[in-house]
């Protein structure tokens, strides 16, 4: 038998004491004083379901969703990647219809839409759900949850339209999460709002199939698309989507003639490459035209992307200069309070037309949508 010295024993006891201390901590984790009396239960109605649009049966009670480019094949009792459309017995339903989890009166500039009724407000609504999962999503607490997981109120389309009129908002904005996933509800609200002379704007990632998009456009007044980047790799790895369907949707929107603005959130090291963005700017000019406003906005750490710093303002300014160099007429810098490139100048005579600070309009010199100096017409929607 090995004989242990006093020294070895001391060492062993030190290790044992250390292990015990650690063990106590870990055991403690498993046995907190759990008090089940404090459980708080929800009250309220279970979300109502409606049959979804744009899907096809596949047999064996499976369905294929044809609303967005994921084209999820969904087995019975399962949901698509959006988390709000569910197969029940071979029939596809939306669980998001009318289940509004966020409602605000926002300045239209917050969307951001700079060339659409500047200085007005928009009744902004969202349900839960999204067909992407951007790792930097700023509204992930609703976009990445299911309807039954977030508190919501039931707002029928007629009620939304009436609320917009009550609060003197000329526009209803479908925003915060991803309105494509609550398509049926958005469509019906837009149709009801239109009856009252109220417009509708979709704030979207543009991840939608062409057929539903074409059917939706006639009830909308404007669309803003988050252009995530110009690489398939970025769309796949960071956003769980694909680039090509977004390009197709943008081209379809431009062809339909509805007012369109683009936002690109510039993220250090992930989508801020100058050469790649130059290609994007050229694609925009060639396919959407040089009049489409482009908002280059500043990233802040959020959701699963906490390891990167906010975008340096100099990066935004460099990309902005490049976009102008490529030929885009209306390029804005966003999420940088008080930046001079928040404002709109006349593309012909450079006169200040709409001066903004944050979401506030400081000065609007437009006369009937035109520059008062040179009469150049500013592209956009400036009257109801």
């Amino acid at each position, binding site marked *: 038998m090995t004989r242990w010295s006093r020294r070895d024993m001391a060492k062993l006891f030190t290790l044992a004491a*250390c292990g015990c201390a650690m063990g106590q901590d870990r055991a403690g984790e498993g046995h907190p004083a759990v008090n*089940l009396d404090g459980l*708080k*239960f*929800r009250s309220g109605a279970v979300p109502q379901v409606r049959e979804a649009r744009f899907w096809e049966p596949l047999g064996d009670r*499976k369905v294929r969703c044809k609303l967005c480019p994921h084209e999820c094949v969904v087995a019975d009792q399962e949901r698509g990647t959006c988390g709000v459309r569910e197969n029940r017995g071979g029939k596809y339903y939306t669980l998001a219809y009318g289940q509004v989890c966020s409602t605000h009166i926002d300045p239209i500039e917050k969307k951001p839409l700079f060339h659409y009724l500047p200085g007005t407000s928009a009744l902004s609504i969202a349900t839960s759900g999204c067909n992407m*999962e951007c790792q930097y999503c700023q509204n992930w607490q609703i976009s990445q949850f299911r309807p039954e997981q977030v508190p919501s109120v039931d707002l029928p389309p007629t009620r939304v339209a009436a609320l917009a009129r009550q609060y003197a908002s000329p526009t209803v904005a479908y925003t915060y999460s991803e309105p494509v996933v609550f398509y049926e509800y958005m469509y019906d609200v837009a149709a009801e709002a239109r009856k009252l002379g109220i417009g509708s704007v979709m704030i979207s990632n543009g991840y939608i199939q062409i057929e539903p998009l074409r059917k939706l456009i006639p009830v909308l007044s404007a669309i803003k698309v988050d252009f995530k980047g110009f690489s398939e790799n970025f769309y796949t790895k960071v956003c769980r989507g694909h680039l090509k369907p977004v390009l197709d949707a943008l081209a379809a929107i431009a062809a339909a003639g509805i007012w369109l603005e683009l936002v690109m959130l510039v993220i250090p090291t992930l989508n801020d490459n100058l050469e790649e963005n130059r290609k994007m700017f050229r694609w925009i000019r060639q396919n959407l035209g040089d009049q489409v406003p482009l908002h280059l906005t500043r990233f802040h750490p959020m959701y699963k992307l906490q390891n990167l710093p906010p975008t340096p303002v100099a990066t935004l300014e460099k990309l902005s200069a490049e976009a102008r160099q490529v030929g885009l007429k209306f390029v804005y810098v966003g999420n940088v309070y008080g930046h001079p490139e928040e404002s709109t100048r006349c593309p012909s005579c450079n006169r200040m037309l709409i001066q903004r600070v944050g979401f506030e309009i400081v000065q609007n010199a437009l006369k009937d949508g035109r520059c008062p100096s040179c009469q150049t017409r500013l592209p956009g929607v400036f009257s109801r």
Partner: protein
Amino acid sequence: MRRSRREFLTDSLKTVAAGPLLIGASTQWFHNAFGEIVPTDRWRGRVVVARAAKGSTTPATPGALLDRAMARLMEEETATAAWKRLFRPDDVVAIKVNAMAGRPLVPRYELVRAIATRLNGAGIPDERIIVWDRSDRELQRAGYTLNTTGRGLKIFGTDALVDGYEPQLSHAMTVGSCFARILTRHCTAAINLGVLKDHDLAGVAVMLKNFYGVIHNPNKYHNDNCSPSVAHLWTHDSIRRKVRLHIADAHLAQYHGGPAFHSAYTWPFHGLIVATDGVAADRVAQEIIERRRREAGMSTLAAEHREPTYLAEAGRLGLGEARLDAIRWLEI
């Protein structure tokens, strides 16, 4: 070699510093009713498949099967002793059922009741047992009667709670989710109660896959046949530390067309699968389903590009035994 007092003190301090790291890297463990410190992988690779006796005209009750299976799994004389090896009287136990498919492809309530009765025998009253899945609706479709009163078994969905999910994300390798508080805060131990069934993407949805129901965003982790996401999910500390037992109700089993109930592809198995190693139990379940598919003249899960490859990944991560030839598959 004789060392100076200085060298001795230096070595001792290094030991003090390294101790927690060594302990922390070791396996998870818990205290049982006998006051033993039990590593969670103590019965690694052991899977009991208990079935009604051949030729028996009356199928064994779930409780009788469960008692036989537990005693064999834990190598105990009595089932009561086996339950005490895993739980202790001050535990709050959450039983995560897989109610998704609806009746009859869900854990039978008789089995849930039998488990609760055995927990009672280990000193845990009904009032400290929560039977749960992600939504009240699914539980009701499965035939369970919701109970949120202070008496009896608590039965409700995560969505029944005002704050059902943790407000902050937590990460388990590639999985980033908000976890159900029933698991993270309201229990000290958990039982994974699934069913023996096929899954059109994941291959099988028996044990590990059932815990997609504890995260808020399972729909984001179904790409690539749920692999390696299912395995990664199981590296989460709350799951590894709290889940002590896996049981699959295999009274009725389904070899194709899952995860929903599809009567054309079901067969009466009249059994239970019981293990403390969920990876091994899933691997055995996969084999049972593969055999039944062969009997039915169907192709393998691999041929249909939906082999549960996440099991091999779970094995590599040390979550359990995924190699069939290394599993002790005990038929009783």
